[in-house]
């Protein structure tokens, strides 16, 4: 009996059409947040920062460069992945789109520092030997091309002062000793039960089957990045934060 009721309910839901987009208002976004929590947050996290599903708290989404594309992804899912489609109405789907677009957008706020001076601080302190901006720099640490779009100034400041407080995923430090006694350290690129690949500070890639190593240690939660609490004065730190916040990648 309730099956029949469900079918009636389904028939009242017209096939969603992306064209009929309602204006984005605070109420629409709030409704989108509620729908997101019930239908999406299980995989994508309440803040959209990912888990089983993709991290949506980022400025650009690979499968949804436009709002229309995002509508289609929410409605139809992404074939060949764990992302299912959904039976929400067109209006509800647009509400979710409006909410998702608020994720990963860090609100602009006035900052004390000067970004141009911060760029010079960045160069003078050798940050580029480990970090990449717009394709230039080292690969030992995270790419900072769009760090300002991904992270707020408070988080960036904290990362400079105390880099070990929140080490980014995918940068596990490893120490290895070969059977010949050679000692190596680096950032893990890949690992499975039988092999490991890591990149050292000079970007040289090392690959071993584990039975070729006498020792292998992983330093979870550790970072090779020095803290800048005692290395930069207050003005230089403000400037560097302002510079990093200004890095938003290519929109």
């Amino acid at each position, binding site marked *: 009996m309730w099956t029949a009721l469900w079918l009636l309910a389904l028939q009242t839901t017209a*096939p969603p059409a992306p064209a009929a987009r309602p204006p984005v208002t605070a109420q629409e976004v709030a409704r989108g947040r509620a729908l997101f*929590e019930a239908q999406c*947050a*299980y995989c994508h996290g309440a803040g959209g920062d990912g888990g*089983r599903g993709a991290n949506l708290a980022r400025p650009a989404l690979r499968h949804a460069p436009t709002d229309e594309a995002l509508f289609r992804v929410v409605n139809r899912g992404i074939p060949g992945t764990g992302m299912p489609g959904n039976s929400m109405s067109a209006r509800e789907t647009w509400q979710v789109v409006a909410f998702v677009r608020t994720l990963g957008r860090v609100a602009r706020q006035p900052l004390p520092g000067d970004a141009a001076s911060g760029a010079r601080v960045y160069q003078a302190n050798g940050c580029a030997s480990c970090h990449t901006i717009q394709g230039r720099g080292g690969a030992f640490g995270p790419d900072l091309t769009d760090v300002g779009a991904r992270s707020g100034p408070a988080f960036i400041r904290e990362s400079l002062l105390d880099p070990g407080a929140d080490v980014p995923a995918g940068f*596990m430090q490893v120490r290895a000793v070969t059977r010949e006694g050679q000692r190596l350290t680096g950032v893990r690129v890949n690992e499975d039960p039988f092999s490991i690949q890591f990149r050292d500070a000079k970007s040289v890639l090392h690959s071993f089957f584990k039975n070729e190593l006498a020792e292998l240690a992983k330093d979870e939660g550790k970072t090779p990045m020095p803290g800048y609490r005692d290395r930069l004065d207050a003005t230089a730190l403000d400037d560097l934060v302002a510079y990093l916040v200004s890095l938003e990648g290519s929109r």
Partner: protein
Amino acid sequence: MRTVLPVLLAVVFAASPSAQLTYERIREAAREPGSWLTYHGTYDGKRFSALDEISRANVQQLRPVWMYQVQGRHHFEATPLVFDGVMYLSDPPSDVVALDVKTGRPLWTYRRSLPEDLRACCGDVNRGVAALGDQIFIATIDAHLVALDMRTGRVRWDVEVADYKTGHSLTAAPLAVKGKVIVGMAGAEYGVRGFLDAYDAASGKRAWRLWTVPGPGEPGHETWSGDSWQHGGATTWVTGAYDPDTNLTYWGTGNPGPDYIGDVRAGDNLYSDSLLAVDVDTGALRWHFQFTPHDVNDIDATEIPILLDADFGGRPRKLLLFANRNGFYYILDRVTGEYLHGKAFARQNWTKGLDAKGRPIPNPDTVPSAQGALVYPDDDGVTNWFSPSYSPQAKTFYQNVREKGGIYYRNDAVYQPGRMYLGASKRAVRGEEPWGALRALDPLTGDVKWDFRVTTPPWCGLLSTAGGLVFSGTMEGMFFALDAESGKPLWQFQTGGAIWSNPISYQAGGRQFVAIAAGSALMVFGLAAP
């Protein structure tokens, strides 16, 4: 075409005897180790191959023989069947291909067109087909059961098991027993009411349905408050085992719905997270044992039961071994359902322990909350659908385990047809790298004999063999073999794709082969020619 096709009895009778897979042959599958006749290899769920050509002594010479690339793009979770020179494989989500085992070349394919508005949670996957008589059976993602002519792949009949629009889907391999095809279903994340069905293999007519959430007037109905039973979940999405002696089929059931909010469904919520023993002739529920009453952590008991006859407590007993997603290893008497033993075999905190009858003592700290509740294991579980294996040679129970927690934040769940009905969001535990292991357990105590640690929590099942080996795979694409006695690694091969499937072994042309689905390829390995 979604209508039931008329039965073509003439075609059934015209089939040549060589293309017949009788029930008796499947029942005696252990005596035919060159074939893989049913999802678990044998009805008892052991996934042990008595073939011993590939052994500890020569496994280093194992190399790929052929590969078959499927068209499905999501996880390739299928276990193939192999007999009479042909491999029958499901291509996700709901296609079937028959392959010549000598060359890997396709003999026929069944391609199913799926409805445009299909919305299935948790991946467009399929775990395999069943075979009986001269037919192959596929349970489809749009909740149909289809019988195909074993020789041609042509459709014999196609019946609707449930309505896909309300979130029902079928992903498990059916179980063919005594002229019937038993089918489990999925959809608990959409608030469906679970059931287990059996269909007549010849006609496609439904023989029985066992609702896994009791309706009004049925025993167990009182374990659901209000109307919550209508969306109670308790789905049956992993293929069960069967014992011809007890004439019972044993199936685990999934989480109650909504997954993470218990106060809207006060009570034990029978028969969610339970083991059900069902008469295959009538569908009558003979006994049940509920592992996780009133689950609020989505820890489905949809794992694979292993049936073992052994001395326990000083006398021979018919046992059922069950490594549960909730982190406990259970031993039940499979005739009576009596709880005999339970022991944690991985990290868990959802219970403070089991009482003398195996009932867990709840830990209120693990109920999803606004502040977030830290739960071990996370909702993917310590185990999941992937196969354990039991080696009678090593007298060991093997299980891939996942050591991973999650933080659960409660939100609202309102039932609407075809929509997620969950009640929480999840976050990873920061600064903690999840890991996994191939864990060898004493089958009669659950004690850990040894552990082979893997980097990423695995989604691969296991196969043990009379060659003294255990086969497994990793999320990084390594397919590997361990010494079944010691756990020492003996061989590995990088397949180039994550492994989300269960290995099998079979014989062709008098030689032993091992097959595994990896990435989008079914890979077959054999020893280099002597």
